[in-house]
């Protein structure tokens, strides 16, 4: 431990490159009537650029206080630096609590995915400060609202105070342009936002847009691990007003999705002394969430879970995420929810690509269990049972061959992306 085996890395040049740290600077400006935060990263080329200019812009909003620490903005790109194995020199203050949490996050990710994160990198801030929020001020929350099932559940649950005294006091919703929709597709994003606006209006909350290139500029390289860190970075733009960033848990507690996605245990480590990140809803399965939302047709209609379809304002209804969500609705007793344009068909289930248990785990853990526990029967459930019964184990020959092919394709694609000049 502590000494890297060269065999794990592609070449001596890679190991040498790891010794060079990445430097990060922070800037806050107002440009064209919009609040802008910038993170400048130097020392690691990305798409042949030596200097990465990562920005977050809040159109139509000015006067947002600048936080005293830069933990949240740094957190979005820490995993990218960890994938490169480069230490991160931060030319700005980090909070002591944030340092500890980010250190824990890096240790955990390295332990779960050693092939992805070659070493536990060091964070080297200019200063470590104490940055407590003022005593006596109520901690209102700003919530991420992508329009998906999880985030819709979280915002409805807290805004409607369904959790009683445990509810967070949500003050605003944030939708991010630059994650599901690329920043050069404003018309597509406008459609996506239009779908969420009625929900925000019904809840009586302002819906802010944060436009950011943070995913496109290297942050997406650690996706999906970086999904919540980048979301928290976007929410932290409002941390001068709101002390809590509310994000929705992706999977219920206890499912072994570690190393694959973003468990709540990792999401909570994005908290620092100034800004608390709360991962909400980990105690509910997806069908539980649907059942909670059923009395609110405005919320159900606005749900948009699809990220593979061409139009980000609509659910394609055929991709794995859409089919899983439809089955969640089926488990909750609503076979044809209004958020999908067409009814669920057998072909949607038979068309799912399930090469191995890893690929099928979402279906098992967030769908099949809930259908089975509710005793749902019917032709669709029969087809799903047959499909899942035949999924080979991860370490079987067919699964090995299929996943190896898939990994190779992904690696080629990532390497092409790394070399591609901007634009």
């Amino acid at each position, binding site marked *: 431990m502590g000494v890297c085996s060269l065999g794990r890395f592609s070449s001596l040049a890679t190991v040498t490159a790891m010794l060079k740290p990445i430097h990060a600077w922070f800037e806050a400006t107002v440009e064209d009537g919009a609040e802008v935060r910038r993170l400048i990263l130097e020392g690691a080329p990305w798409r042949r650029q030596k200097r990465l200019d990562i920005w977050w812009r809040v159109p139509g909003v000015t006067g947002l206080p600048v936080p005293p620490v830069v933990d949240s903005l740094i957190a979005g790109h820490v995993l990218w630096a960890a994938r490169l194995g480069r230490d991160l020199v931060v030319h700005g203050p980090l909070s*002591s609590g944030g340092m500890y949490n980010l250190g824990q996050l890096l240790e955990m990710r390295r332990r779960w995915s050693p092939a992805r994160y070659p070493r536990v990198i060091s964070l080297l801030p200019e200063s470590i400060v104490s940055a407590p929020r003022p005593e006596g001020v109520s901690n209102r929350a700003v919530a991420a609202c992508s329009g998906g099932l999880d985030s819709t559940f979280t915002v409805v649950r807290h805004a409607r105070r369904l959790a009683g005294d445990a509810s967070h006091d949500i003050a605003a919703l944030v939708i991010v342009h630059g994650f599901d929709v690329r920043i050069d597709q404003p018309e597509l994003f406008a459609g996506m936002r239009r779908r969420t606006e009625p929900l925000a209006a019904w809840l009586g909350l302002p819906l802010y847009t944060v436009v950011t290139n943070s995913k496109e500029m290297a942050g997406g390289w650690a996706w999906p691990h970086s999904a919540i860190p980048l979301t928290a970075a976007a929410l932290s733009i409002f941390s001068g007003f709101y002390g809590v960033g509310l994000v929705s848990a992706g999977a219920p507690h206890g499912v072994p999705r570690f190393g694959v996605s973003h468990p709540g245990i990792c999401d909570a480590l994005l908290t620092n002394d100034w800004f608390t990140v709360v991962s909400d809803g980990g105690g509910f399965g997806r069908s539980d969430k649907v059942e909670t939302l059923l009395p609110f047709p405005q919320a159900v209609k606005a749900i948009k879970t699809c990220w593979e379809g061409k139009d980000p304002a609509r659910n394609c209804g055929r991709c794995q995420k859409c089919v899983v969500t439809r089955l969640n609705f089926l488990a909750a007793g609503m076979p044809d929810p209004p958020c999908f344009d067409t009814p669920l068909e057998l072909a949607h289930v038979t068309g799912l690509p399930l090469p191995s248990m890893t690929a099928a785990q979402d279906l098992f853990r967030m769908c099949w269990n809930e259908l089975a526990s509710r005793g749902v029967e019917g032709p669709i459930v029969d087809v799903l049972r047959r499909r899942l019964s035949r999924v080979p*184990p991860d370490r079987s020959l067919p699964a090995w061959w299929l996943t190896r092919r898939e990994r190779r394709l992904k690696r080629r694609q990532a390497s092409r992306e790394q070399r591609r000049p901007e634009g």
Partner: protein
Amino acid sequence: MDTGGMFVLDRVDPRQGASGWEGHLQHPDGGTTTLGFQVIGDGPQPPDHCDGLAIAFLPLVMRRGGGLHVRGSLTRGAIRNLTEYAEAWASWSPGGFGRVVITADAVLDGLRPPACHEAVCAWSGSLKSTHTLVRHLDALAPGAFRVRAAVRVLGLRPNSASLSDADTLRPSVEALGIEGVPLLAVRTNAATTGAIDREIGPLPLVAAALHMIGGGCSSGLHSRSWPLTAQLRYPRPGVAIQDLLCGDTFAVRADGGAATPPRMAADVGRHRALARIVSDCRDRERHEPPCGRCPACDLLALAFVAWCGDCPLPTLRLAASRVARLPFQDPVVSAEAEGILEDWGRGPASLRTILRLRVGCSRLGIDVRDHWRWVCAALGVSPPWPR
């Protein structure tokens, strides 16, 4: 599951001359559970609010579900966190736990933890908890806390009242004294009142003790008991849940879990006094010499031997036959053994070879089992899940 009842928690003054907490939980059926935490010797006064006390009683309420009303004050953060904690366990095991609606006479808003980066550290004497302690003492963790004191909780095993507290604590006090860390001890009657949940374990009780005794610190640290790598194959909700046993003024944080056993042995080994009293023994109390016969003792010895070829604990002697007989069907043993193999240092090659063979056989066994279940599921003999 019965989910209609309301539990009521009263905080009562401890017995005369004692410092600590005591609470009565009135069950909906009229029964009462009394749980106490008593500081041995001098220690900080417990906080005015009841965050920690509510944590201690929560598993009892979760087993039945329903409501918990606290006659006293809770911070808003504690209500939120404990509600989610109950939800998480109820989601994991719907037949075993229920969701809990928590209310209090007074809900405290706007409180903050002290603006210091200091912590008290729960220390049972195990390798993991000792590693958590030394990695903060030596600033091996990024953003390491300044350790104000180590906290030992007594009374978590039914037979732990056999020795006097002074006898029990003397070796620990001496070893910690060399490191300049004071030991705070708390005695609880949890084991005799049935307050330790068989599935959740003693963590809520330890968290309650940390809340009680952590005055002036921002956090209380405890080591992660379940290895992170074991979680990948054998998920448990306890470790998957973020740090939810917290209030607004004090956070109880799980620490570590990423280091392999030999790495922990190396870090702990630099503190000779502490290394000599480390014990992971399952059969004996932590303050007694380890039995040297249980798998936990074998793994502890193996961690030290793997790193430096020698074990500082005189009662632990490792034989190759014991490594060959490690019970790999236990996920903790399996995960720890793999961690030891991954980080093998200057230990003897013969032991390493035996361990490698055992790990290889274990993986093969898992593959065979997975294929068997696959065939059974595909033939319709068994359901598609669990696989």
